[in-house]
């Protein structure tokens, strides 16, 4: 797990605040002892109240600042996620990141305070009364020791029950998610009783674990309160004997519980913090996009492409297997074959998005891996299978990455102008407002217009550009593509015969291998 940015500084700030808090608690005890022995409100007390309030504020404000910047950092990181599950990332970037708060602003500060304050209290007690100091010093370590012992016992038990607990706990989610399936088979209404009995079994199993888990806080409370009794009663006897004055006695009584209070506070926040830490770990564990860097540039214009025994496998599943293919500069190749045969993977390899597992791609005789990605991509006009629409106007979607592009010509060529004519704000219509309202074919044409606007590209990569188009639109798109092709290299993934007719050669892929090659 990568380190949290700014954690070190935050811990330093927290330590300073904790030391100051410890000081304020000592002063406050002095003030209270004076007040309660009838000495009235002293300057000590006024100063203590002012500083405790100020420190509480400082803790809150600084903790909040740190948490906000950590959340910001996590969000930035998540935005670079290389996950392919956009919905999951969208949830993580909002609610997932919020969940870290219980750890960052709740648990961490109280943990630091629970180190500083007990130490200060014990030191003060040693200078006041040896017996009481020894009682507190002896009992305080019992808390973490027992917490660890009980924690181990609880986690051993939880582990034994883990399978049962997750299964029972997840049952509701499982059944609710499978509601559609249950309905299809007419079993939906019978499950309510099962949901109830599973929840009952879950409650029983959880209670069994909690009976052990809560023992740690039982020990904590017992140690804290018993030591107050252990301190107070002997002092009482000494007061009776005249060996101690009332103010000192009260000072000890007020101080002793302060040694245990921070540990109790940290313990109380522990469970919520565990969830926060999990959320934090999840956000930090998300794999991020790594950017390929290479420096070589090439002259622009139609490239020649050679694939030499290129294989690609995703998670051990073979997508392309030993593909040899040569596309001379200016030639046009159509890729055909059933879905899943590796056509889109081949385009991704040519774009440089998917590195070959073995073999290599030569561009004008140079290995693609050594070419600067930015320069290479700037020379490609690519239409993916399902173009993504981005926030912003229709115009900015067509001119993606090309601010000065001639969008009207591109839109006309992609047969998009008739769609635009029907929009109230024309090209300035925000896509966000119609995104979902556009048909798949219209989205496809926006993607096509985006590629057609790149009039200087030397390589054209089209992934089934006419899928989802009706016959008239298809004809329009085909003629635009035909006008685009001369003097450029092109690889066209084609489903329909009309698209195939644009190519000089047809290559058939089946299960990741080149089957046949036919001259068109």
């Amino acid at each position, binding site marked *: 797990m990568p380190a949290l940015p700014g954690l070190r500084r935050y811990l330093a700030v927290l330590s300073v605040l904790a030391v100051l808090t410890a000081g304020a608690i000592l002063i406050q005890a002095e003030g209270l002892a004076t007040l309660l022995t009838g000495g009235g409100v002293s300057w000590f007390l006024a100063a203590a109240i002012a500083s405790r309030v100020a420190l509480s504020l400082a803790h809150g404000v600084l903790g909040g600042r740190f948490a906000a910047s950590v959340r910001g950092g996590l969000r930035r990181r998540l935005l670079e996620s290389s996950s392919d599950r956009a919905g999951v990332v969208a949830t993580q970037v909002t609610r997932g990141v919020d969940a870290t708060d219980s750890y960052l602003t709740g648990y961490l500060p109280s943990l630091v305070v629970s180190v500083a304050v007990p130490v200060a209290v014990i030191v003060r007690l040693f200078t006041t009364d040896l017996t009481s100091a020894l009682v507190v010093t002896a009992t305080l370590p019992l808390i973490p020791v027992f917490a660890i012992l009980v924690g181990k016992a609880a986690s051993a038990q939880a582990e034994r029950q883990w399978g049962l607990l997750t299964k029972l706990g997840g049952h509701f989610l499982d059944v609710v998610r499978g509601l559609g399936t249950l309905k299809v088979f007419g079993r939906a209404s019978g499950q309510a009783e099962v949901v109830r009995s599973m929840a009952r079994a879950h409650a029983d199993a959880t209670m069994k674990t909690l009976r052990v888990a809560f023992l740690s806080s039982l020990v904590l409370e017992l140690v804290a309160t018993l030591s107050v009794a252990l301190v107070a009663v002997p002092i*009482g006897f000494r007061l009776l004997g005249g060996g101690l004055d009332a103010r000192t006695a009260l000072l000890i009584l007020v101080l002793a519980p302060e040694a245990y209070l921070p540990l109790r506070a940290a313990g109380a926040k522990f469970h919520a913090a565990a969830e926060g830490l999990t959320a934090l770990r999840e956000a930090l564990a998300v794999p991020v996009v790594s950017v390929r860097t290479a420096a070589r540039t090439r002259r622009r214009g139609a490239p020649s492409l050679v694939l030499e025994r290129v294989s690609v496998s995703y998670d051990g599943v073979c997508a392309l297997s030993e593909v040899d293919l040569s596309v001379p500069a200016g030639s046009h190749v159509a890729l055909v074959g059933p879905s899943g045969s590796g056509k889109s993977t081949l385009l991704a390899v040519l774009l440089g998005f998917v590195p070959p597992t073995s073999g290599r791609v030569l561009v004008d005789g140079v290995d693609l891996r050594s070419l600067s990605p930015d320069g290479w991509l700037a020379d490609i006009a690519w239409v993916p299978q399902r173009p993504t629409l981005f926030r912003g106007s229709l115009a900015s979607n067509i001119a993606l990455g090309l601010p000065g592009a001639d969008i009207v010509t591109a839109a006309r060529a992609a047969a998009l102008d008739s769609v635009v004519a029907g929009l109230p704000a024309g090209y300035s219509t925000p896509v966000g407002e119609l995104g979902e309202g556009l048909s798949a074919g219209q989205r496809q044409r926006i993607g096509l217009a985006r590629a057609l606007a790149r009039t200087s590209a030397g390589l054209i990569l089209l992934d089934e550009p006419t899928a989802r188009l009706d016959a008239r639109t298809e004809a329009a798109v085909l003629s635009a593509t035909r006008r685009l092709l001369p003097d450029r290299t092109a690889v066209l993934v084609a489903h329909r015969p009309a698209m195939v007719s644009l190519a000089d050669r047809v290559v058939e892929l089946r299960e990741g291998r080149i089957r046949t090659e036919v001259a068109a």
Partner: protein
Amino acid sequence: MSRLSSFLSTGQQSSTDRRTAASRGPAPVRWNWGRPPGRVGAALRTWGVSTKDVLRLLRAAFLGAGAELAALALMATAAWLLLRAAERPPLAALTVAIVAVRTLALLRGGLRYAERLAGHEVVLRWLGALRARVYQALAPGSRYSGGDLVTRLVSDVDALQDAVLRWLLPAGVAALVGTAAVAVTATASAAAAAALVAGLLTAGGFLPWLVVRVTANAGKAHAPKRAELAEHAVELVTGQRELVAAGVLEEKRSTAHAVVDELAGSERTVSAKTALLAAAGTLVQLLTTVAVALLADASVPWTAALALAAMTAFEVVLPLIGAARRVPEIRASAARVRAVLAEPAASGTRTPGPGHFRLAAATLRHPGRAPALKNVDLDLPPGKRVGILGPSGAGKTTLLRLLLGTEIPTEGQVTLDGHPLAEYEDLSKVISGAEADAHVFHTTVRENLLIAKPGATDAEMREACETAGFDLALDRETGPDGDALSGGQRQRLILARAVLAAPPVLVLDEPVEGLDPAHGDAVLKRVLDTAKGTVVLVTHRPEHLDGFDEVLTLEDGRALPASAAGRRPGRP
């Protein structure tokens, strides 16, 4: 693990089950004294809180209050003991206090342990009943089937656990402790008691209320920014390659980063405000303690006891200020769950026969989107085999959902023997199959199969598995949503379930997608050979549809004319 053998109820008596389950539900509080139950009663009924739950909750609250009062009394008694001892009375005057200090010290830990167990117990039991109620509310309706919405709802139900444990119960305990502390203080001095009341109400009522307001307002203000951030995240993830190809990834990211920074800025402001309110709580605590000490007008030991008791009482009250930050969130969860619980259950009464399905100009439009299906006609007499082709997103799955009755057309009609599907009580006896988003339950293969046909013998199940090419043991655990199976195995299990159900009308949504093509073709052929009745098969491979009576090609939710789709000859 014996109780897991009934992980899924596969009882046949589905419709009667619904009625009996409803009457068997968590006995709600009965208000039988003839007048309207009022807001509290209504709330208790909405949330299915039984009398037993209320009693258990009260017990937990009293145990908690007992624990906190023990702590408070411990400090007060100890202070009294010390200051009285300083006056050198005879030892006999102190014995009671000494015994009390020791007893209270033990009492506090024990009571607190008992309270935590009692609190969790009541919440877990109630949550179980609530889950069953929410499930019952979801079961008949079709609005909440599948997807993130449902996952969200499940976490909403679980969030209510926090509402009780971290808010309701501590608030109740604080109220009891505060009342007791005020009552004891009042015996010494009315003025000190008044100061304590004012302090406790400020710290336990007014400040938390302000925190709720601040966070609720911030939540409202943040909502659009957060939605925008989520949209950016989706764009950057789904459109990542296109942005790289266009060379604008960095530009898009920095736009998103600006939103992140904006959010961080306003989050800082909110946390500063809540920090101020928390600091105000500390101020109120210390000032009230001083006020009680100055106003108590009693002997020195007694005054010290009251002042320390007041200070300790605040230790129970102050955490409410922090806890209040989560109130708006919990309130939103509660509102969503309540909306589900309030939804009236609608169900038809007609009993279906194995009949004639028909789509007449069926259109399905979700608000704000292009129609998922537009003006589609389909005639499906018994025994007919129809194939549905088309690119993804063309409306193929939507068409199946209309047939299955899980979606209702917004225009046009879907009928069975001339009656709209909504009029039937249970279509599963007539039509079922393998949906594209079918769920595999976290249990065994056998239980997953039994949903399709309760009471099926092992031999029947094995036969169905063989037809579908599924070759794992019936006792094999499937993992959450079939995670313990490979994608192909999962697919074939879903198919085996459809084969076992053997309904008069079998729908299959890309049933061999993701299988090795040759193997998939063989599996599909076996399944189609076994199917006796009507078949509706969605596929993207036309060769699967040889011998089908009709092929319907969809694009953008519309049926392409038969000529354009290349109509295939029917079976002889």
